[in-house]
């Protein structure tokens, strides 16, 4: 047990932070200081503008040296925020960092309390609690555990691709796990990217093939993470590689088998995921020409052989490299890694949920993603914007905020829709010369060159109506409206209801977390925001970290964002992972549990309780023993121990009893 003799009688120094006005405006820091000064064991108490600033920390260091302070209490923000800062200050002055205690009087007091007197009282109570607790503190040593050098990246969209490449370039080995048969994600489906209008494929596919070829990247597509165990620096990740029924090592993606597949161009074929159902594909298929890996996959829900067990198996005959293997089964592999990056992306809002816009009822109501495929040269129409009947639209209405900024669906703004709607407006006009209307609530174009792009569209003669569309119907009030889709909205800038007949409606659907985001976050032991996006550790200061050390998030799985932001986050996440790995070790809070052999009655109550099987029974002594290396410091055994023999460093019973009494010692 890493315990050292207490450095003599407690000489406690208390420091109360104003945090500018964040605390001082609600807590009477002067009287708190004087109150603290009167508490037993406190030899000095000060208050200061910013304790976390250099002068603030220096104050602590100096007091430790000059006044022999051997216990430190800082009353400021949350320990999750600055505990580390102040512990380091102690270390710098030669004091064991575990003689430090923090009182959270910002997040827990000044920011949540209306009345100044109430806030001051609560702050004093928390200070008293911290003072009494720290008096019982004991010196401890942090454990150091070596870090595994590999990284697992989950999700092969642009975020995962960029993170993986960054790490691989730094010489780390990366396992890139992607659920779909190819990497590329949503970006691969897009035609152009705003605001520069450079072609998505042109900038993405080189990175994709780089991933496929990189010696430091193990690419596992059509695979999912089943389980994760371990802690930061040393994770064990179980990956299920779904049966592809094709030997990835030999298939070169020549697609002879696709030609050969007996499913004919009729209803037997299945909707093509990559073209969002606008075209059909066969049972064996390559998602799209530049798919990485260039390896076909057989859809077990469409393949006659796999479904009914009987088929001519023309594909097998067609494959010279004998890659097709109907016997293939799911393969489960386990890898160890030091860090994990989640880049699982998003799904688009299901337009069926807004029946008033007629998606699914009227042929010519499309979602924005469908239109991305329509305008794409490699898309189902070869880049021609054609309606279901093959004709070109003469007037198009683009409806913004579908499923976004709507408390019935998603209260948040999906952030990218305004810009991609402008982009689609440009492309549709360019391809068809159609008159394009944009129906928006607010046009949100913050970003480099974004507002300029909006200007350009306006100059190109795009029509804009500031008003949220109420409904799309085929109900004609005038002859001009006959046979058209009629969009009804209030032109709020003019203050009149307008009916605008169009040939094509584009629904700018918002971004949503994946349906299984909840399971995934459980698997990786991180949190989700109420909307279901992965929760970052701090919205400003730790935007790619999670509450689980060693796990980072990047891209849209953390919230809607556009490509530049996504790539930036991916780089950031990779950087954070590198910092961990190159440090080579993690320091672990010494909050492990231990058994006081003299007090242990050997009753074994604790043994089955430990989720990490860290407790065993020493048969000759007849007492329990805790393997410190396995103990993760939850303290369950301590709470259960009937004789009080089990104790937890940093959270001993008496430390907590003192804290309780301290907290109650001030009204």
């Amino acid at each position, binding site marked *: 047990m890493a*315990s050292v*003799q207490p450095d003599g009688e407690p000489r406690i120094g208390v420091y109360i932070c104003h945090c500018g006005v964040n605390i001082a405006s609600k807590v009477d820091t002067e009287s708190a200081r004087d109150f603290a000064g009167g*508490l*037993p*064991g406190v030899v000095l108490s000060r208050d200061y503008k910013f304790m976390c600033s250099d002068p603030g920390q220096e104050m602590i260091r100096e007091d430790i040296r000059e006044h022999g302070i051997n216990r430190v209490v800082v009353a400021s923000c*949350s320990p*999750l*925020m600055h505990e580390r800062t102040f512990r380091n200050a102690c270390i710098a002055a030669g004091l064991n960092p575990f003689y430090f205690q923090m009182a*959270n009087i910002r*997040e*827990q*007091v000044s*920011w*949540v*309390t*209306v009345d100044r007197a*109430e806030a001051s009282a*609560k702050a004093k*109570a*928390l200070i*008293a*609690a911290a003072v009494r607790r720290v008096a019982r503190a*004991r010196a401890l040593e942090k454990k150091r555990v070596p870090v595994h050098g590999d990284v697992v990246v989950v999700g092969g969209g642009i975020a995962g691709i960029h993170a993986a490449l960054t790490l691989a370039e730094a010489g780390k080995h990366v396992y890139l796990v992607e659920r779909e048969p190819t990497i590329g994600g949503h970006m691969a489906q897009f035609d152009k990217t705003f605001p520069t209008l450079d072609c998505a494929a042109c900038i993405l596919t080189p990175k994709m093939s780089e991933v496929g070829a990189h010696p430091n990247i193990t690419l596992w597509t059509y695979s999912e993470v089943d389980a994760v165990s371990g802690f930061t620096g040393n994770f064990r990740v179980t990956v299920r590689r779904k049966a592809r029924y094709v030997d990835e090592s030999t298939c070169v993606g020549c697609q002879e088998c696709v030609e050969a597949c007996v499913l004919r161009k009729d209803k037997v074929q299945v909707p093509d995921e990559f073209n969002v159902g606008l075209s059909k594909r066969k049972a064996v298929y390559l998602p799209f020409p530049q798919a990485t890996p260039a390896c076909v996959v057989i859809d077990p829900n469409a393949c006659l052989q796999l479904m009914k067990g009987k088929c001519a198996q023309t594909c097998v005959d067609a494959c010279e490299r004998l890659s097709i293997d109907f016997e293939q089964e799911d393969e489960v592999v386990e890898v160890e890694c030091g860090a994990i990056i989640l880049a699982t992306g998003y799904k688009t809002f299901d337009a069926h949920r807004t029946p008033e816009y007629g998606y699914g009822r009227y042929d010519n109501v499309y979602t924005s993603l469908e239109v991305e495929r329509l305008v794409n040269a490699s898309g189902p129409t070869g880049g021609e914007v054609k309606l279901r009947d093959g004709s070109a639209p003469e007037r198009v209405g683009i409806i913004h905020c579908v499923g976004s900024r709507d408390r019935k669906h998603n209260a948040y703004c999906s952030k990218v829709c305004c810009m991609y709607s402008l982009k689609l407006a440009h492309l549709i006009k360019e391809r068809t010369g159609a008159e394009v209307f944009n129906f928006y609530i607010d046009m949100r174009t913050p970003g480099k060159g974004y507002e300029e792009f909006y200007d350009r569209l306006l100059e190109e003669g795009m029509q804009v109506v500031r008003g949220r569309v109420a409904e799309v119907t085929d109900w004609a009030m005038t002859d001009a409206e006959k046979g058209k889709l009629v969009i009804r909205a209030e032109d709020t800038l003019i203050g009149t209801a307008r009916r605008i007949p169009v040939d094509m409606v584009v629904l700018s659907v918002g971004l949503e977390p994946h349906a299984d985001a909840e399971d995934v976050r*459980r698997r990786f032991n991180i*949190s*989700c*925001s*109420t909307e279901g996006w992965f*929760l970052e550790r701090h919205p400003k200061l730790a935007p790619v970290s999670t*509450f*689980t050390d060693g796990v980072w998030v990047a891209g849209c799985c953390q919230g809607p964002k556009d490509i530049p932001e996504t790539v930036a986050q991916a780089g950031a996440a990779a950087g954070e992972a590198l910092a961990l790995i190159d440090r080579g070790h993690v320091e672990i809070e010494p*909050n492990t549990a231990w058994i*006081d052999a*003299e*007090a242990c009655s050997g009753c074994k109550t604790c043994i089955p309780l430990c*989720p990490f099987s860290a407790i065993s029974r020493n048969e000759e002594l007849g007492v329990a023993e805790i393997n410190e290396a396995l103990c*993760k410091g*939850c*303290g*369950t055994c*301590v*709470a*259960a121990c009937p004789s*009080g*023999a089990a104790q937890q460093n940093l*959270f*001993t*019973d*008496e430390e*907590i*009893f*003192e*804290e*309780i*009494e*301290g*907290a*109650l*010692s001030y*009204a």
Partner: protein
Amino acid sequence: MPDVSLPIAEERKPRIIAFFCNWCTYTASDLAGTSRMSYAPNTRVIRVMCSGRIDPEFVLTALRKGADGVLIGGCHPGDCHYQEGNYKCLRRFRLLKRYLAQMGVEDERVRLEWIAASEADRVRRVTDEMSEAIARLGPCRLEAAPSPPDRGVESEQRLAGVAS
């Protein structure tokens, strides 16, 4: 250590000791702060690593030492950072509640809530509800109850033994 409690005002505000687990509920209560939600000032939060660490003795001591209510906050079932600490907590909590009932402690005084890191508003709501309920009930009188062996002293002696 001498008792430092100051003269307590006649009709003092109800005081609630809250034990929050480090990973979910404590984080949520921080989030309540960063989102500037205002709620009743009656709670005093004590951070533990896991709700599984919460010894029923903590709750009893809190009530005995003048708390009018105790709130326990942990991760939702299935979300425990240590796999199942919150279940253990729940088990003990049920037993504790029975014991408290026998001692005539009203049900609303001691409450267990699963609050995820993102559920700041839940922290606010629960705190407000509880403060209101307990204000209605008035101060808690548990001094009467049989006092347990003072483990504080015992384990301190043990510590000395081990440390040396």
